[in-house]
Each structure stands twice: as structure tokens, then as C-alpha cells.
């Protein structure tokens, strides 16, 4: 399979701040590739290099087989780009934004209507509303429509679901799956771990470095430790008590549960329960659970962050 993006040993700093450190990865044609990592990990810088807006300090970056420095003029028309911040014209209406971006890319809404239709038809009832007055989810749909209007070969979406409600996020990912079916290569970044499993392959990125790249299934398999979910009404005390436990390996809050691994590996749940009882945390609910990508991410992150 040909590669849509080829990045090798790319670094980028802003003054003293290292934004990217020796990043390397490939995105195959037709793939839905995700970058998952917290804010400040370097995702936006990476996207700006992919969109030819920033020049890497070192390393090689090829997009659609062309060099991002020399061939930027040829690359740009073939990209669909959605920056992290809503970047359409807030004082133009939905339809005017669409028309404007269509004309900028030398096309019309009608010409590529089939491609954007599933997304745009949801916006059509509001087509005369100013973009600035749309809800977060609507804005993202509009931005995606505008990025798609010229049938790009590669779609680059920088945190498209940040600040968007859960329902809209789900819808948005359904759209991405649909676009993938159309044969468009998609690179997307997100701070939400639960979205990682919706990608074909995922790169975990933190502190300017890629920690691991694999399919979501393989990534969770890489987490080999036995994982337990523990629940108790007094969550705050539960965390502290667990951290003080002599065999504790990692303790992370995940929603209503505390995810816990033990240094002894697989453990007898009653032993842990006795310890909790002795600390006054009676009737704690302990169960063995399947790890997900966030568990892996937490375990890959640098140790000093673990016991905050």
C-alpha cells in the first residue's frame, strides 16, 4: 500500500521549547489514522508541518509523496484541513462560508455535493445562520464540510471534537468512517482516549514524542498487567489509601472507578479487600477488567507523572 504521509526523524522547536522530538510515522493511503495525546503534546505543531504551514527543523516530511518544503504549492490544493480552532468566517452565514471555500478551491457546492451531502444536509436548515451563532457541534460539521468541498485526497483534522458534546462527537466519527469508505485518507488528532479505538491505527503522543503506534486492538494487548477496577463512594480516600498500599503499582481514577495494578501481578481480590476494610473503606467493589488505550497510555507516560 502506498503511503499518504511519510514522516521520518522530524524535530521542531520554538525557541527553547521542543515541540516535536524525532517523530517518525507512516500513514497508509485510505487509512484513518489517529493521534492521541494530552494538550501540549505537540499535535498541532505536527499538523502544521503536515499542512506545510511550518517547516520542520530537521528530518524528512512527505505528504502525498511530495516534500512539504519544496512542493508545498502542489500539496496544499490536495489537502482538506481543519485547524484546532474554529477558523471559518463567523460573520458569514453557513451557506456563504460553503460557497466561499468552494470558490476558493475552484469548485462549486453542486459539483461535490454528493461527498458533502450527508454532513451538509444536517446544516441546511440553518444555512442562513451566521457561522458564529452555531453550536459547537454544528460548527465542526460546517468546518468539515468546508474542508471537504474540493474532494481532498488527504483530510487533516486537528482536534475536531474538542469542545463538542458527546452526541455530536459520535456523529462526527460516524462521518469520518463514511469518508474513509469514499477512499479519503484521514489523519485526526484527539485528546479523548475513547476516540482512539475508532481509528484504524493510533499513535500515542506525549511530551513531543510518539510513545507507540499500532492498531487499537494491538495497543490494548500490549497492556499485559492484570487490571482491576475498584469502586467506593469515598473515591478520594480510596485513591489515597490505594496509593499507600505496599503492593500498589499504579492507581488512576477512571470515571467512577479507580484502575489499579498490583506489583504482584494477578492478585487475590479478598486480600486487597481486607486491606481496604482495615482502612475503613468497607464494601468496596473490586473486579477484574479489560484494559483500554488510556490504561496503556498512562502506563507509558513518564513515571514522575504517575503519582501526582
Amino acid at each position, binding site marked *: 500500500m502506498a503511503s499518504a504521509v511519510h514522516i521520518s526523524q522530524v524535530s521542531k522547536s520554538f525557541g527553547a521549547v521542543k515541540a516535536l522530538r524525532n517523530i517518525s510515522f507512516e500513514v497508509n493511503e485510505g487509512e484513518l489514522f489517529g493521534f492521541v495525546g494530552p494538550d501540549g503534546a505537540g499535535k498541532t505543531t505536527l499538523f*502544521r508541518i503536515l*499542512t*506545510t*504551514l*511550518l*517547516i520542520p527543523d530537521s528530518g524528512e516530511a512527505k505528504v502525498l509523496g511530495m516534500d512539504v518544503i519544496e512542493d*508545498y504549492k502542489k500539496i*496544499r*490544493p490536495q*489537502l482538506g*484541513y481543519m*485547524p484546532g*480552532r*474554529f*477558523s*471559518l*468566517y*463567523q*460573520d*458569514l452565514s453557513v451557506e*456563504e462560508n460553503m*460557497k*466561499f*471555500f*468552494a*470558490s*476558493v*478551491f*475552484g469548485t462549486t457546492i453542486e459539483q461535490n455535493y454528493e461527498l458533502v451531502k450527508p454532513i451538509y444536509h444536517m446544516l441546511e436548515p440553518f444555512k442562513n445562520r451566521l457561522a458564529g451563532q452555531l453550536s459547537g457541534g454544528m460548527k465542526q460539521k460546517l468546518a468539515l464540510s*468546508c474542508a471537504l468541498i474540493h474532494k481532498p485526497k488527504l483530510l487533516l483534522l486537528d482536534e475536531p471534537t474538542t469542545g463538542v458534546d458527546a452526541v455530536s462527537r459520535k456523529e462526527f466519527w460516524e462521518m469520518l468512517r463514511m469518508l474513509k469508505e469514499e477512499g479519503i485518507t484521514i489523519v485526526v488528532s484527539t485528546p479523548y482516549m475513547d476516540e482512539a479505538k475508532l481509528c484504524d491505527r493510533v499513535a500515542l503522543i506525549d511530551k513531543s514524542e510518539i510513545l507507540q503506534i499500532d492498531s487499537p486492538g494491538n495497543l490494548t494487548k500490549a497492556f499485559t498487567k492484570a487490571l482491576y477496577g475498584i469502586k467506593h463512594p469515598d473515591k478520594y480516600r480510596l485513591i489515597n489509601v490505594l496509593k499507600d498500599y505496599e503492593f500498589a503499582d499504579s492507581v488512576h481514577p477512571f470515571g467512577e472507578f479507580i484502575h489499579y495494578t498490583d506489583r504482584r501481578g494477578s492478585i487475590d481480590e479478598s486480600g486487597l479487600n481486607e486491606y481496604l476494610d482495615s482502612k475503613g473503606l468497607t464494601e468496596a467493589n473490586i473486579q477484574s477488567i479489560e484494559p483500554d488505550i488510556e490504561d496503556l497510555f498512562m502506563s507509558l507516560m513518564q513515571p514522575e507523572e504517575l503519582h501526582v
Partner: protein
Amino acid sequence: MNAFMGFVVKEFKQIYRDTRTLVVLFGMPIIMLTLFGFAIRNEVSNAKIGVLDLSKDEVTRELIQKLSVSKAFELNAYLDNYDQIEEVFKQGEIKEVVVFENNFANKLVKEGKADVQVITDATDPNLANIVQSYTGAIIRDYVQEINDNGVAVKAGIQPSVQMMYNPELKSVNLFVPGLIAVILMLISALMTSISITREKEMGNMEILLVSPLKPHYIIIGKVIPYLLLSVVNVITILVLAKFIFNVPFNGSYGFFFFESILFIVTALALGVFISSVAQNQQTAMMASLAGLLLPTVLLSGFIFPVESMPLPLQVVSNIIPAKWFLIIVRSIMLKGSGLLFLWKETLILAFIALAFIALSLKKFKVRLQ
């Protein structure tokens, strides 16, 4: 080309939807012209004066009569002795006292000359100067009159003064060309630099750059709406100047608009240049106001004549486009000059325009920083 038209249409829509921009665009010229036209004047009207007539004969009576009917003066006090002069000046109302010596008429007839003393309150030197020269003019006029009537002996050399092109010395005639320069600078440079930096600030530029739209299309597309609006403003000012302030227009309108567009293009290029350096709207605004508007007002000859500036400032004034534009517009409007006389200034202006266009095209970044 379609992409370019789309861009221009978008730009017009944005301007049209932004009330603040609209107010600045169309309110500013009217407000400024009215302000400069009515409030800020160099000519004096109704300055209060006093008279100390030690002679009280028919000649002094006639002279006093002439002074008091002049629109410039309002005769406010008759004094009896010299001591009162300082007193009235201290009260502050009276700006000038005219003193006629004893035996004024007699001396004038017998010796052919009589003394008038003009004492002014020079706390406001400008006003004092003007008031004094007005008084002088009225007295000279009167002397001329009685000479012609053969009452007095003709005395020596008589200067015959004629003020050409602006005989009434109306300051509004001088302000209108300067005002056109200031307003064009404000709208063209300030507004374009703000509107381009806004695209940067809002992140629109990020998408525009990643599109097939060529950088010079982005710039020209940004600039064309302001070019058209500036021309509309020039017309507004001209109409106001002509019908409200009766400012004469002696030259060719075609030539005038050609020069105006040349100046607008210069200002637009400056605006684009500022926007390529400034990262946000505030910086762009400060740079435009301090870096463009101030020199345009102070160093172009709009308010202070370039000839009376210290040499270093005179040198600096040469690179200020408004200076050349002012010379051109004043000549066209008041003297009716054509390209034959103004080719040099036009050429300089064109050169400055080209230089800034080249500079701003070169500075325009196709990438983010």
C-alpha cells in the same frame, strides 16, 4: 479568477456586516471634514478689540467705524488713558487695543503721516499676529482711499499686495486636501492592516494559506474593496467641500482621481506591509496610527508648513507619501495645475507606491511563524 471574485465578494460582505467598520468608513470623513471646516480655523472672526482715541477727530472716527464693521472685530471698549490698556488685557476679553495719537487728522494732513499704535495680547501668538495684520490691512485700505480722493499727500512707495489662488486666505481651502490625505491614509492603511491581521488572529489565514488561492490574490482581494470605498470617500469629501464650504476646484477631475488612486494604492501597500509584520489587530492599529497617521498629520505640511520645519524633519518629510499628495492636490484644486507641472511629484509618489507594494509582497508569509 472565480476564486478571486469569491474572495472580493466575501470581503465586501464582511465590511458591510461590521457596523464599527461602517461607522469608521463613512462617518469619519464627514465628522472630520465638519470639524476641520467649522471648528479649526486660522482666520479670526469677532475678536474683541478696544480703542484709545486721544484725538477724537473725523479721521479717527472713520477709522474706528471701519474697524468695528469688519467681520473680524467686535469693538468692545473705549478707553480713556494708557493705564487702562493693561487692565483690559488682564481681564482677558480684549485681544487688541488700537491707539490713535493726539491731533491725528491734523498731523496726517500737515505732515503726511500720523501714528497708530497697535497693541496686542500675545498670550496666543497666532491670534495676536492675525489680529495685528488685519488691523494693518484695514488702516492701509483707508489710507489708500483718502490718497485716491486727494485728501492727503501721496506718501512714498505703496506696496500692491495680491494673494493668489486663495485670496480670502480661507483655511478650509488648505485643510480639504490635507484631510483627503488623512482620511485616505486612515481608511486604506489602517482598515486593511486591521482586516488582514484579523484573518490571522481568527485563524482564517491558516485555512486560506492551505488553499490554492495564491498569496497575491489574497492581498489584492483584501485591498480592492477598500480601494473602492476610499474612492467613494474622496467623492464624499469633494461634494461636502464644494457645497458646504465652497472650496474651489480648478483642475481636472480625471487627473485628480488618478492621483488619488495612486495615493490610495500607496496607503494600501503600507497597510499590507504593516499586517505582514503585526501579529494581531491591536499591534496593527497602533502601528498604523503612530507610524502612519501621525506623520501624515504632522510632517506632510497639512498643518505645519514643511518649509518651517528643522532640516532633519524636512528630510524625513520626503518619504511621507502624504507630503507629495498634498502638493499635488493643492495645486490641482486651487491652481488647476495638470500633469505638466506635477509630473515630478507624481513620479515620486508612484515610486513610493511601487516600493511598498514590492516590500509587502516580499514580506507576505506563505507559512505560519
